[in-house]
């Protein structure tokens, strides 16, 4: 009973926190702080989308950055060509990311476990190489630097300047709320149970009639679509789109967020995103140290703290109740 209760509270808790967060820009008007907040919001959405496939169904995909990058390039190229507003960019990016996910899933989902991870790693690097070397279209490593601003209507009508941080803050906050609701809907109820079942034991799951492939594909496509949407929104904010967007660095970041925060848990992933986006900003001075600490955290959490930050919190909770 306790577990269910806790889950029910966490959604209210998160939404309450988000509401609190939403008045933050009114209190702090330092652009740097706002920028960190926006990055954090971006990573929350991005990490949640990753957790749908990695934490919920347990297929550790190493290709997640590809969809993010694709979304960014969609905005930089297609969105600019037709002068699309941001919501149309999101739609196009989502559709194309799902398309890429479908192509990737053809070879990748014939494999299981570790082989799946390898295959996605190979595919992700292939996609990145193509983007990097297809200079005619993507400008390759020279990057696309004049990404147009987000706008509410076609051809730059009602444009949101990229220096208007408050507007971006609320834009990402809204996107996050949508993603959190979607995440909740997927990770609970009947579908959520099915995903947990597949993660726990594929053989048993198929013996009770669950079509493993279908659910794996479903989550892979959903998470790819969300990642593409976030990428398409992130590109105008940063203003430059490079092949780096598709690099393994992003995927590794997400892996760290999900596993340090606690995979498969909304609270954990959100906590992990905040932790790993805010701290690197504070530690911007010593990059090598920062990454070492990052790695150490990851190692400690994976080897000795099974459920990440989420696990620690519930552990402390238990203790408080007992005493």
């Amino acid at each position: 009973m306790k577990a269910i209760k806790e889950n029910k509270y966490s959604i209210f808790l998160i939404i309450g926190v988000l509401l609190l967060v939403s008045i933050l820009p009114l209190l702090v008007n330092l652009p740097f702080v706002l920028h960190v907040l926006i990055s954090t919001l971006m990573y929350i959405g991005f990490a949640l989308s990753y957790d749908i496939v990695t934490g919920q169904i347990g297929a550790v995909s190493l290709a997640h950055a590809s969809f993010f990058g694709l979304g960014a390039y969609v905005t930089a190229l297609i969105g600019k060509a037709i002068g699309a507003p941001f919501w149309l960019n999101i739609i196009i990016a989502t559709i194309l990311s799902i398309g890429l996910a479908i192509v990737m899933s053809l070879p990748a989902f014939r494999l299981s476990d570790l082989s799946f991870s390898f295959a996605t790693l190979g595919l992700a690097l292939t996609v990145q190489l193509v983007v990097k070397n297809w200079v005619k279209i993507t400008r390759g490593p020279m990057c696309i630097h004049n990404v147009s601003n987000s706008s509410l209507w076609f051809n730059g009508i009602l444009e949101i300047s990229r220096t208007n941080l408050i507007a971006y803050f609320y834009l990402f906050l809204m996107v996050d709320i949508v993603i959190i609701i979607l995440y909740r809907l997927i990770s609970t109820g009947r579908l959520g149970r099915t995903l947990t079942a597949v993660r726990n034991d594929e053989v048993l799951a198929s013996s009770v009639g669950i079509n493993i492939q279908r659910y794996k594909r479903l989550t892979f496509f959903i998470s790819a679509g969300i990642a593409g949407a976030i990428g398409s929104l992130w590109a105008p904010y940063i203003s430059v789109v490079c092949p780096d967007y598709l690099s393994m660095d992003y995927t590794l970041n997400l892996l760290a967020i999900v596993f340090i925060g606690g995979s498969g848990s909304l609270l954990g992933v959100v906590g992990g995103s905040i932790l790993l986006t805010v701290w690197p900003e504070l530690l911007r001075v010593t990059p090598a140290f920062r990454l070492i600490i990052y790695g150490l955290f990851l190692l400690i959490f994976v080897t000795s703290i099974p459920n990440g930050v989420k696990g620690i919190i519930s552990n402390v909770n238990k203790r408080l109740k007992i005493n």
Partner: protein
Amino acid sequence: MNKHKFWSICILTGTILALITSCVPQQSIQSEDEKAVDVSIAEEKEPIRIGVAASFSGPIAYVGEGYMMGATLALEELGGKIAGYPIQFYTADNACNPEQATSAIRKLVDVDEVHLILGSGCSSCTLASMPLLEENKVAQITGGSTAPEISEMAGIGGNIWEFRVNASSTVMAEAYAPYIAKNEKSVFFMAFNDDYGRGAVDAIKPLLQAEGVEILGEEYFERGTSDVRPILLKIKEANPSALLLTTTESDAITILRQFKELGLSIKIYGYNSTIVTGLFTEMTPDEPGLNEGILEITWWAQGMTPEMEEAFLSRWGTEASPHRAIYYFIVRYVVKEAIELAAQRGEITRESLRDALNDLSIENTPIGPLEFDDNNQAHHWLPVYTMKDGVVEVIEILKP
């Protein structure tokens, strides 16, 4: 068991937090002399804060390190003060990634409240930072980004806050192409697969074609590739009269070694490559003459500024290189003169520093007169030089 685990986790978290807080303290690089001077002067002026946003991590972290070497040396030579104002450097890492560049600039502007920014060597980062300069009304001096778009977008009618000292790849190509065309019939390009390498090739290719030089091929490779023999064999097969190489010291060593191993004998032109330097010779003590006879063009060649080179060697224990030297020149001449001009005119602010940069005209520097044109681009001299008997020999200095 459980209790034990709980406490161990607590202790661990505590240790890590302690570690992190120990890393946070301020990062201003202040030389000891500077502090001494500070005390002796009774009338204390508010320090001028200068931000350095460069890559201090990632694959080209050594570029950022090199910038700081040059900048610190220049500041020390100036006694830590310009026009009576103590100068403080604040660094922010951008890892050569545009997303991180945004964070870095914002941190410098908001947290460190810098008056002026020394920009990155990565064009993508410089381009990503430009809207932020406009937003915060702070000027940036760039010394390493070569993308032509930067000056196209900067200056009158564009972004008035971005200034570039080093020549763009177009400018360099315009100077170099006739020189190559004079001596060679056909060329092959081999360059880094990044904006630096590709940008350089894109700029010079049409110029060489226009001069009637045959282009036999172009190959790009990733930084740090260990085995480049297949590419070199391809070049061998194409048999051009010259190879145009865009790389940096350490990768050049790998390439030249395998070049030698495969027995190739094609004339090499370094192009933005920094092979013909004392640093290169210093890195290859076992292979004297590896860079012998290679021609090169950059913004600075060894031997142009003997005093500075000596000072550099004694301060850092290693040779100066174009990457390391450019920030020396920026701080030693451009920043100095700009601050002095701004101080003459009145208060030092972000705006007054920008105006000073805009009106700047420095007659004498070792790399030629420095003045920003309508696109906020400076035009320094371009030396063409080669390595002869282990010594850098300047063949010609191209003056714009």
